[in-house]
């Protein structure tokens, strides 16, 4: 293997193993910042030795053993250091041969064979609610996703320096607060898990909102979020909401190729060429959803959103969409996760299932909602319902209002076109 090929191979090994290596070190030193440092040192050693010695047969095990030794060395030094301060006259030989090795050996033994558990602890620590959402996202992509600071910066259209500082500060915050490196207990779990899922879905949506011409790292965020979601689902196979989120992401990702036309303009769900939806991802999404439901999690917010996505995925043609089922799901979602945005979507579904008049009633009830005051979807949906009722002038005015509200040039184009179309004679 050429030197360059070896380096690329090492990088690939690192991407596969880094989260586990960091997690293993963190279990020992109880500090993710220090753990990442130790992991980086381990990578440097691999980069020095593997091109000379060749790649080990089991590179993952090599890295784990190497980082463990580094972590234990570090603990021995720290313990020694602390002892020196405490008992200046102590017999160092006795210390080294008895006290120190005993304690690190016990620690090392206790940490064997629990890599999955370590990784889960790392996920929860990176998504700790003590951190801002931005910090959680950056730290998760760095520690779990194995992305470089530069990759994260490109993905979020943010200067690299900003991301680097964000990660440093996040690690310091965790360290200073002495956040324990553990999976939260049952009482805390729902809230802490919600924080993890929120981060994953945020990363996914950031990738999903990438537009043509963006750096390729942006759409790659979808795949990364999906991969991390599958990892967490594997670590917590009994948590239905994790499966719900994975199902939602799989089904949404299945539409990637159909979401924009040849000119890069967004294509509405009902107008998409469904033959371009990815059947494998749909199947995986439906499987994950079925597992979430089998666990009794059908009413979870992510599972409900996945079920909504599944309704569309199951309809081979737009006209076959089961709108009554969609209304029922939005009704349920409005109970567990009420929001004005859910209400708008519910109005659309009601309009499709029971006629535009029924949909308009819901939309009109939302007119005074302050959260929607600058949200172009409201006039856009209202325009659509009015157009169906033949109230052409009102419909046109709503589409024009919506066009004036969106900051997205492509959407503005679409809305302006709709305003023009509605004015044309039937």
């Amino acid at each position, binding site marked *: 293997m050429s030197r360059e090929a070896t380096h690329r191979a090492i990088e690939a090994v690192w991407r596969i193993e880094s989260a586990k290596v960091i997690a293993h070190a963190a279990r020992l030193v109880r500090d993710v910042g220090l753990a990442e440092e130790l992991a980086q040192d381990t990578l440097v050693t691999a980069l020095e030795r593997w091109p000379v010695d060749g790649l080990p047969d089991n590179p993952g095990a090599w890295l784990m053993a190497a980082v463990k030794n580094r972590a234990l060395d570090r603990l021995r030094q720290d313990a020694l250091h602390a002892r020196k301060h405490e008992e200046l006259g102590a017999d160092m030989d006795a210390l080294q041969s008895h006290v120190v090795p005993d304690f690190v050996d016990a620690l090392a033994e206790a940490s064997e064979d629990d890599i999955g558990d370590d990784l889960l602890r790392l996920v929860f620590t990176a998504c700790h609610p003590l951190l801002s959402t931005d910090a959680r996202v950056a730290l998760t992509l760095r520690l779990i996703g194995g992305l470089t600071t530069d990759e994260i910066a490109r993905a979020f259209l943010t200067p690299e320096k900003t991301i680097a500082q964000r990660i440093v500060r996040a690690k310091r915050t965790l360290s200073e607060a002495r956040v324990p490196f553990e999976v939260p207990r049952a009482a805390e779990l729902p809230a802490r898990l919600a924080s993890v899922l929120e981060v994953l879905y945020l990363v996914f949506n950031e990738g999903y909102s990438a537009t043509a*011409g963006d750096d390729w790292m942006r759409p790659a965020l979808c*795949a990364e979020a999906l991969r991390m979601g599958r990892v967490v689902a594997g670590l917590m196979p009994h948590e239905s909401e994790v499966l719900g989120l994975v199902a939602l992401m799989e089904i949404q990702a299945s539409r990637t*190729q159909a979401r924009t036309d*040849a000119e*890069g*303009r967004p294509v509405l769900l009902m107008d998409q060429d469904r033959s371009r939806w990815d059947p494998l991802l749909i199947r995986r999404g439906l499987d994950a959803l079925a597992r979430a439901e089998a666990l009794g999690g059908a009413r979870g917010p992510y599972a409900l959103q996945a079920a909504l996505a599944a309704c569309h995925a199951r309809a081979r043609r737009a006209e076959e969409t089961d709108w009554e089922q969609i209304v029922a799901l939005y009704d349920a979602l409005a109970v567990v996760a009420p929001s004005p945005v859910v209400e708008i979507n519910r109005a659309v579904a009601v309009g499709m299932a029971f006629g535009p008049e029924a949909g308009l009633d819901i939309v009109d009830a939302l007119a005074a909602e302050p959260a929607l005051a600058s949200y172009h979807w409201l006039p856009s949906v209202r325009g659509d319902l009015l157009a169906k009722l033949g109230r052409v002038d009102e419909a046109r005015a709503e589409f024009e209002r919506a066009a004036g509200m969106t900051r997205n040039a492509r959407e503005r184009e679409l809305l302006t076109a709709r305003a023009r179309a509605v004015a044309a004679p039937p």
Partner: protein
Amino acid sequence: MRFMMIVRATPDTEAGAMPEASLIAAMTSYHEELAKAGVLLDAAGLQPSAKGWRIHHGNGRRRIVDGPFAETKELIAGYTLIQVRDREEAMEWARRFPAPMGEGTDAVLEVRQLYESCDFEPNHGVERLRETQASSTSAQA
């Protein structure tokens, strides 16, 4: 990007012989690793070609030919579909694939990259937009 790791058929797989327990265990734990890493999309073993058939297209006609097929080495016995970030990662996972017929037995694992929709439908709109953005960026610089 997606890669398919394809296990080529052997006389044993064509005979429908069940793999040894140790091989099944190795395959299971390898696929578990793939799943845990979030990269496994799909995997399956294929029954012998004796149970399959081919449809030959020629001279504007279709002709059905039942298996088995002679050229064993050209047949496939199973596949594993993964989604990874780059070619090197696929290479590393392929390197870790257990010896498909058990250690010490000749076998071939072939890895192929899948086309994504964007590969075979050149998207002129996207290209044009990229060019426009690139030129406007250089104009600012």
